[in-house]
């Protein structure tokens, strides 16, 4: 068994924490899971990606074209990393754009980005995770809502509702995080595949 995930987003969005929670849940299930992170400089608002490889592997980087799942916390970054996705790879993407802090930067329109998403790989689940997080009181809940959504899809081997809930319960501010998780868990059933 081998299952590859790419998480993409902008430094500060909590991507590493998201990966870490999934990794910790799988470790509890005795599944072997490697995760490669970007620390340091690029975390200051730059593009960040995290590689996760599940199964009997030794090297931590997902080869191009072999991700079974792409999790994008920001639209531009999701599109930037589509090259990692396999032909049938699933996309879970936050419908949210962060303008790069570059003078006079030109950014593509939302609809162009969404079209681009649909052009590659398998099904796309697009939802306004950050908006939901702000409704819960803080953008920092974005990643836990996404965690709920990923778990609800049942596509990551052995990533079960029970184990993830158990991990989320161990977090600081666990009450709100559990709420965020549950919100995400129900969400994709509401929005469906786009």
């Amino acid at each position, binding site marked *: 068994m081998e299952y590859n995930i790419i998480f993409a987003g*902008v*430094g*500060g969005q909590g991507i590493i924490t998201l*990966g*870490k929670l999934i*990794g*910790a849940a799988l*470790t509890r299930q005795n599944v*072997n*899971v*490697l*995760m*490669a*992170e*970007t*620390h*340091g*400089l*690029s*975390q*200051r*608002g*730059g*593009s960040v990606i995290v590689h996760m490889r599940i199964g009997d*592997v*030794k*090297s*931590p*980087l997902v*080869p*191009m*074209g072999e991700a079974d799942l792409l999790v994008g916390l920001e639209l*531009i*970054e999701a*599109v*930037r990393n*589509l*090259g990692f*996705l396999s032909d049938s790879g699933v996309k879970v993407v936050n419908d949210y754009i*962060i*303008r*790069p*802090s*570059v*003078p*006079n*930067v*030109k*950014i*593509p329109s939302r609809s*162009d*980005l969404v079209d*681009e998403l649909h*052009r*590659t790989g398998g099904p796309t689940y697009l939802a306004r995770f950050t908006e939901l*997080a*702000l409704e819960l009181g803080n*953008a*920092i809940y974005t990643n836990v809502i996404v965690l709920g959504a990923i778990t609800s899809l049942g596509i990551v081997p052995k990533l079960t509702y029970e184990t993830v809930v158990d991990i989320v319960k161990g977090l*600081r501010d666990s009450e709100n995080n559990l709420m965020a998780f549950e919100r995400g868990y129900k969400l994709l059933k509401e929005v469906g595949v786009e």
Partner: protein
Amino acid sequence: MEAEKILYLLGNEAIAYSSVEAGLGFASAYPGTPSTEIVETLAKLSKKYGFYVEWSVNEKVALEAAYGAAVAGVKSLVAMKHVGVNVAADPLTTSAYTGVNNSFVIVSADDPSMWSSQNEQDNRYYGLRSYIPVLESPTPYHIKDIVLEAFRVSERFGHPVLLRTTTRLSHLRVPYSFREPVREVSPPEIVRDPARFSVIPAHARRLRGDMLRRWSRIEDYFSSAWFNWVEGEGDKLVITSGFSYSYVVDALNRLGLEDVKILSLSGMIPIPRKLIIEAAKDVKKVLVVEELEPIVETHVKSILFDEGINVEVAGKDYIPLVGELTLDSVVKGIGAWAGLEVEKSISQPKIDLPVRPPAFCPGCPHRGTFFSLRKAVNRSGLKPIYSGDIGCYSLAVLPPFQMQDTIVDMGSSIGLANGFSHVLPEDHIVVATIGDSTFFHSGIPALLNAVYNKAPMLVVILDNRVTAMTGAQPHPGSGYNINWEKSVEVDIKKIVEALGIEYVIELDPFKIRDSEKIFKDAVEYVKRARKPAVVIAKRACTLLIVAWARRRGIEIPIYTVETEKCIKCGICYNNFTCPAIYPDDKGIAHIDPALCVGCGECVDVCPTKAFKPVKEWSEEFKSLWW
């Protein structure tokens, strides 16, 4: 005996936990990506397991401190990023001459691909040129075994050991089984032995001979130790160095190549000569797969030539010299070497995507400092040269600021300015910008030099109270020790005055207008007096303060734009570039509430005062800034 516990750890955390299992008694470091979390984790474990940990002021001091502990018979570890070893190279080199009285493990965290560094030097060379053995984990799952081995080898031979890790290995996460250590703590005893530890020339000449004899015993050991092994069978041989083994195993599986044997060298320095001869003597061809420099490759070629073994040895012809290895690059390299076609087509986006370089965080004090500094310098009519340095403020190299004309190494801002200021004509102004942690690390001698030699320059010390770039570690100016317990708070202004600087003034970067005036006066002083002046821009790292506020449940303030006041000048989103401010289709500024942290710097930046608070600073929030 307590059962083993399965934890999910970062490579660096695994190095820390393993060191505890090895019986560590002393650890020191200066932060630097990708090494920082090693000693950060040790700090968290230090109380429970009873050992000493510190942030030292720079790598040389850190290495000397750990070396001293090992001379006193305590198992010690020092960790640093690869370029930190340059700073510590002097004592490092001589430590191999004297050896130590217990384990002395130097962790060098190299950064292939330069994810957060100025170069990608390969520190296996330090082992080679200093007679210090080098160990590197072959897989994510061997970290513990290799760390334990590093401590064992060091203790057994009474010799320093360099444990090499890389960004990939340090910053991957892997299941780790932790076994509670059984600690026997016997008080250390110092054996005063100047014939061994005082390297006057007469002693050093003898010590060099001793060192070389130890070296050859270590080489013998490396040829038979468990961590260097041969696996598989075939008439082709792939030799790996450290972590490249992982890529090779995964690549061979993918390629379905079965007639290949692997010689995995986790202890590659000293080069295990006998093992290499044994493995290569009856194969048809050899490929060395190693990250960065062809160190093992060069040695293999020379050894086989010496032995008259006539076999084709390849390496950098197939494996990239630049950047870190990836499974893709190793599959491609081995494939080509074995005569297999491996090409894959990757879908490229059909639309242009903007690059997203890192930027100052929302609310970063550095943004305010550079904004007001730029205005003051531009208005002075002088031609600036901005001698920059390493830290978060390096980000001012990018637009819109472009105020880091040189960045070389920690402390180089004032260092290079010492040259600029004596050779550039008087219509120039030399501006050195240096962070507080960098100032303590290596800025002080450079500034002393400027005073002594009357070098006209404006030195801006960006005092955000911590070492921010590496994740906000405390330093001597913070007033806290590694565990954030109250310690001595060293006053930068007093140091600067004591060095003999006559013009020194502090400012608050959040107050843009006031700061501009202060910079203007300081520039005039340098021009008039032809001496160095120092401005200390003092305001804590916002990222840290916001993290503290979140953790303590303190509400974070937020600002908004009175859009009817916005004249679409773009200063806030194009010249100031706060990430929380973005223009709509018409060019009117807005604030993203998910990103704003309410610093209020934008208030002074906007010509029409269009920014106003939605949630004000609470007393609690104010009290977090120190």
